[in-house]
């Protein structure tokens, strides 16, 4: 698996880190705020790795990063320390219960037959379990589920290709004002979309894309440019420029360098961006609710509509919610580390 190979020092550029790259780019330690990234850079640590280590790797990482903390714990194992330890797990456990409560409610309610979905039965286990809820939910939402797939997959693919090219230019072919331009692009990621929504519907109807899935794909690709560019720009910034210079000396041009040097190193960057974009497009509600009409509704809009209706049983609503959450949850379960990497890339400084 990639996480195994990733530890080898030789492919360090495969997993570049924004913080390390930023600090490396700064010859002198800038004042206050950047202290953390300096520390990281000095110790050659990717902050993301520290969060994302999988269970098997934890021991090794601990040894690498916190050489003496383990021994300290071992020294002070009195009865008081043991009590504190117990308390620690108790708190962690209570929080875990809180985070899992909605999942429990989703599961038990969606597996009950309609007749058993009564208020006084809300927290009881569904016995015998029934798939009626899922059948009804799929009958109501199946087409919308497919719409969401038809929407999110192309949008994620196009967005990531665009972001990769933009990131390449803004990291490795900087022109005058490139950083200012980048900041201006980034602003597009934070705006409340309400501020463009009214004219956007006008534009979409004028070009005949209002109400269609294609139109929504276009919208998500455009407003996905800032985040995808950000992630790829930071990703490519960590790839040594000497590598590119050498290729240039050998006569490689702009596209050749991208194809034969950058692209082969981009796999995990693409995974991060694809997951991020798939996730945000799949979970989007505002654009979908404003720019599509019924047969083309994606899952979120259809689910909200279903849940807003008093005529629909709760088991069906919960089954629908579970269906709507399923794809992104599955991705999280399988590729969680890339998901979290995207979260951090979208928030930590560039």
């Amino acid at each position: 698996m990639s996480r195994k190979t990733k530890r080898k020092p030789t492919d360090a550029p495969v997993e570049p880190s924004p913080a390390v790259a930023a600090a490396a780019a700064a010859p002198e330690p800038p004042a206050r705020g950047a202290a953390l990234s300096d520390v990281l850079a000095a110790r050659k640590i990717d902050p993301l790795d520290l969060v994302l280590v999988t269970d098997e790797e934890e021991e090794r990482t601990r040894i690498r990063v916190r050489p003496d903390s383990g021994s300290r714990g071992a020294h002070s194992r009195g009865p008081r320390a043991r009590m504190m330890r117990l308390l620690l797990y108790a708190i962690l456990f209570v929080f875990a219960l809180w985070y899992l409560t909605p999942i429990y409610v989703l599961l038990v309610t969606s597996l009950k037959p309609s007749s058993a979905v009564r208020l006084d039965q809300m927290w009881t286990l569904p016995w015998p379990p029934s798939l009626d809820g899922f059948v009804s939910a799929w009958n109501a939402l199946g087409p919308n589920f497919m719409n969401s797939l038809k929407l999110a997959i192309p949008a994620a693919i196009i967005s990531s290709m665009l972001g990769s090219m933009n990131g390449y230019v803004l990291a490795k072919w900087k022109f005058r004002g490139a950083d200012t331009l980048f900041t201006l692009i980034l602003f597009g990621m934070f705006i409340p979309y309400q501020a463009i929504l009214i004219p956007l519907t006008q534009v979409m109807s004028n070009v005949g894309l209002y109400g269609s899935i294609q139109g929504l794909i276009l919208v998500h690709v455009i407003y996905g440019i800032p985040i995808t560019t950000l992630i790829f720009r930071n990703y490519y910034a960590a790839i040594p420029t000497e590598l590119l210079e050498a290729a240039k000396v050998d006569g490689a041009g702009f596209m050749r360098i991208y194809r034969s040097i950058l692209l082969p190193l981009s796999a995990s960057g693409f995974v991060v961006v694809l997951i991020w974009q798939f996730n945000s497009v799949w979970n989007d509600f505002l654009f979908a609710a404003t720019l599509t009409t019924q047969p083309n509704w994606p899952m979120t809009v259809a689910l909200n509509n279903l849940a807003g209706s008093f005529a629909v049983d709760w088991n069906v609503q919960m089954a629908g919610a579970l269906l709507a959450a399923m794809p992104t949850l599955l991705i999280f379960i399988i590729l969680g580390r890339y998901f979290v990497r995207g979260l951090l890339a979208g928030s930590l400084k560039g």
Partner: protein
Amino acid sequence: MRISRDRVSSLLVIAPSVLAIAIFVYGLIIWTGYISTVKWDTLRPDYTSVGIANYQAIFAQNRFLMDIRNTVVFTIFFIATSLTIGLTLANLVDRQIRSEGVFRNIYVFPMAVSFIVTGVVWKWILSPGQAAYGGTPAQPQGLNQLFGLDPASNRWLTDAHVVYIAKDSPVYGILHDIGLGFITSPNIGIPIALLSIVLAAVWQMSGFVMVLYLAGLRAIPEELKEAARVDGCTEWRIFRHIVFPLLTPITLSAMIILGHISLKIYDLTVAMSGSGPGFATDTPALFMWQTAFRDDSFGRGAAVAIIMLVLVAGIVVPYLVWNRRQETPA
């Protein structure tokens, strides 16, 4: 000056994206700004200029004042709670616990779920039960049933109460004496129903804050803390005077991200409660959408949108500038 072919290629590659952002972000913002100054209050666009009348009309609406209040209350509670829980969890998880990965994933997974799903589930959990709809005997639901609470007095999402500083409170006099009497207005209270929305939003976002803090904590060299320990510092003092100050940039980032989310919050309230009792859970985003796309009052909708944009820009632009300064030291 000769411009190389590669340079031209690079500019050609980025040009479509720059153009798209220029048109679809900046161009449309300007267009929205223009719409906010025209009459357009039916389905058909009407570009008769009305000056700032749309803005005046909005500020004259009680609903918008409620929205501003709700946004302030939501932002404060949402940020404070998410940061507290995120920092606490990061500190707990960072203590070499068993099955760290399992706990971490349980705390973060809500980020992968849409606000609509979150809203649909929490609405079911945070509804008080039958008594709220006049049913007898009281039939508790959700948390009321789980904890044996009376649905008549614990109404969660449907609670229309607004807590404010009453005349007989000791703080009331003090605030009036120091010239902050306006805070005691019943319009500036805390809508109880809104706290239910905060609960769901914190459920979704606090794990993300934990991830941010965890990355920060793990980057702090152990030697730093060890040195303080040798000097006889308690664990709390080490956290207070060494760890927490080093986490300042992360706290700031988290506040900006959570803050701009709370200014824009829309999906969650739509799925949970809509405007709520007495606009207790209404937000500017919901107001904007309904004004423009339900009532066809596009001029006023655009005005609300511009106010939202100004608020968000007020916190995001300094952040972006700060970010850039950090990246390119002078």
